[in-house]
């Protein structure tokens, strides 16, 4: 054992002390920001314009209000019977020290039907990538390995395609239905990718959303304990001294008048605050806040009619973020269905959607399974008479691990 707990304990105590201090500070700032939000309720249009004016020139994320800022939507009635599909994935990344170059994505698939004739179907589908085309993206002479973030992007695509397949297979349109995913629908990880990599994955991802749109089944994703500061970014505009919507002036962080006057920027009050803090006191059990469009660059530039919108919903002691594409956001009936079904799932799942918990259980690859997979690969290579051996580094590590 090489972790020195005596030394660590001291640092952990210091950390707890400083966390308690910063919590007090955050609480008082949250109150001020929430009060400002309340006072801006009647000016939704104005702040939407301010967001559009500042989008290119401000250095933080924004959420564009689509509904009045003071919207508090009570929980719609839940249908007596409904069906939903959900997927979640896990991956084993390309192992440079392993015997052969390959990567694995495992997608958990869940179908649940409630009410008159309850039914559940859970399974998982593995995808093994090992060919040159599987492992690399090429554009002329450039060759990019699909690993890490890019493998995660491939996983997102596989999850989406699996969800669309599952919807085709299991949902016959006789019941209100929903297709649910875990995490965000905005593919942040691709934002800084090379253009051809971004195109490759986004095209496939968006065509999955398009398939869902055509099938008429609303897609939503659920983010437990979201850390996004997008509404908080819009709040910054309300504190910014430079914003003047009437004069067509947005925030320009590079020319901030506070910094020029050697003052602390007025928007600093929002620093470190997240969207959930702002809505924490406004929403009671099951209620949702107003709809916003996420203004992240990749969303605005690439998603088109699938532009991702989101709202926050109160589930027990936490606020969760639910994301939907534009075609769900603009359809009041579908939006209400997402609202109530997501909430019902959370209630059945003790605070987290049952379907997603089950999909995760199906998708996850535990360490004994991981080892079994490794042995399967090695055994199969051995029988195929391909020399199979792990790197010296891996062998050494396995020895230490015991």
């Amino acid at each position: 054992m090489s972790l020195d707990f005596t030394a660590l304990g001291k640092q952990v105590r210091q950390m707890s002390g400083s966390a308690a201090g910063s919590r007090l500070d955050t609480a008082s700032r949250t109150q001020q920001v929430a009060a400002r939000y309340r006072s801006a309720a009647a000016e939704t249009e104005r702040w939407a314009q301010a967001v559009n004016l500042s989008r290119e020139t401000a250095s933080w994320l924004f959420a564009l209000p689509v509904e009045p800022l003071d919207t508090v939507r009570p929980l719609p009635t839940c249908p007596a019977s409904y069906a939903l599909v959900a997927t979640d994935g896990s991956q084993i990344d390309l192992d440079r020290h392993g015997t052969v170059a390959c990567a694995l994505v495992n997608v958990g698939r869940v179908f649940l039907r409630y009410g008159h004739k309850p039914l559940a179907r859970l399974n998982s589908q593995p995808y093994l990538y090992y060919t040159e085309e599987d492992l690399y993206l090429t554009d002329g002479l450039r060759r990019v390995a699909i690993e890490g973030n890019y493998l995660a992007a491939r996983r997102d695509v596989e999850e989406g395609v699996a969800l669309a397949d599952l919807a085709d297979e299991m949902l016959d349109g006789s019941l209100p239905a929903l297709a649910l995913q875990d995490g965000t629908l905005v593919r942040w990880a691709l934002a800084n990718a090379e253009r051809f990599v971004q195109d490759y994955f986004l095209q496939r991802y968006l065509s999955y959303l398009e398939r869902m749109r055509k099938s008429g089944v609303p897609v939503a994703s659920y983010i437990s304990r979201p850390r996004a500061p997008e509404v908080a970014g819009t709040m910054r505009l309300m504190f910014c001294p430079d914003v003047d919507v009437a004069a067509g002036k947005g925030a320009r962080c590079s020319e901030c008048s506070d910094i020029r006057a050697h003052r602390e920027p007025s928007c600093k009050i929002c620093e470190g605050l997240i969207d959930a803090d702002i809505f924490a006191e406004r929403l009671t059990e099951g209620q949702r806040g107003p709809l916003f469009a996420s203004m992240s660059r990749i969303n605005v530039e690439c998603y088109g009619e699938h532009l991702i919108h989101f709202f926050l919903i109160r589930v027990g002691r936490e606020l969760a973020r639910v994301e939907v594409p534009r075609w769900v956001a603009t359809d009041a009936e579908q939006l209400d269905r997402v609202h109530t079904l997501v909430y019902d799932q959370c209630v059945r799942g003790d605070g987290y959607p049952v379907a997603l918990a089950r999909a995760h259980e199906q998708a996850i690859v535990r360490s004994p399974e991981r080892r079994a997979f490794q042995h399967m690969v090695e055994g199969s290579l051995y029988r195929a008479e391909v020399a199979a051996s792990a790197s010296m580094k891996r062998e050494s590590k396995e020895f230490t691990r015991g």
Partner: protein
Amino acid sequence: MQRIGEVIETSTTRFTAGAYALHAASPFGGLVRAQSLDAEMAVYGLVYEIRTGSKEPRWARRRFAGGTYTGRELYDAEIYHEHPDLAEVLQTEFSALTVGFSAERRVYHYLPPQPPPVHYSVYPCDAAELTAFSQSSDFFRSVLFAAQIPSDELLAAVIRTIARARPDPRAYLVDAGREVAGLLKDDYDRLNALLRRIRP
């Protein structure tokens, strides 16, 4: 009869099967038949334990504290109705003590040369098959002296089951009682307890 499960663990003296449906195991003391590698051979076992638990050791185990679950109170069958996923994440298994086998249309009341293979089907036996199997009481001994199972309870349950499947239950119970008395002649207390359990 329909197959009800498949073998998930096997050995010469006992085998365990996973039931295809939740809570759908053969009853305690029931005779089951497992298919063998040799298509002409089947292995007979008596169910001595039924258990239901989570397929996923850590993840699927959930707290079901009290009845307040979805705001309104749910109990018993209602919980399964409102949570259809439970039937998928819970699994019923049953273990059977191997007491004989059939080969070439004959029944033998001793251990088969090979246990049933893992993943092979398990079937419940109907009254006719049970009656045919119980023509001889040779398996009583294997049950009584099997280790680490509730052997007396099992034998009593088997005898009652066989009696019910026959046209004259009383006659069978009396015969079986005599057989047990012979086997337990050295242990009066145990015999007495067992006889009470199969009293006509």
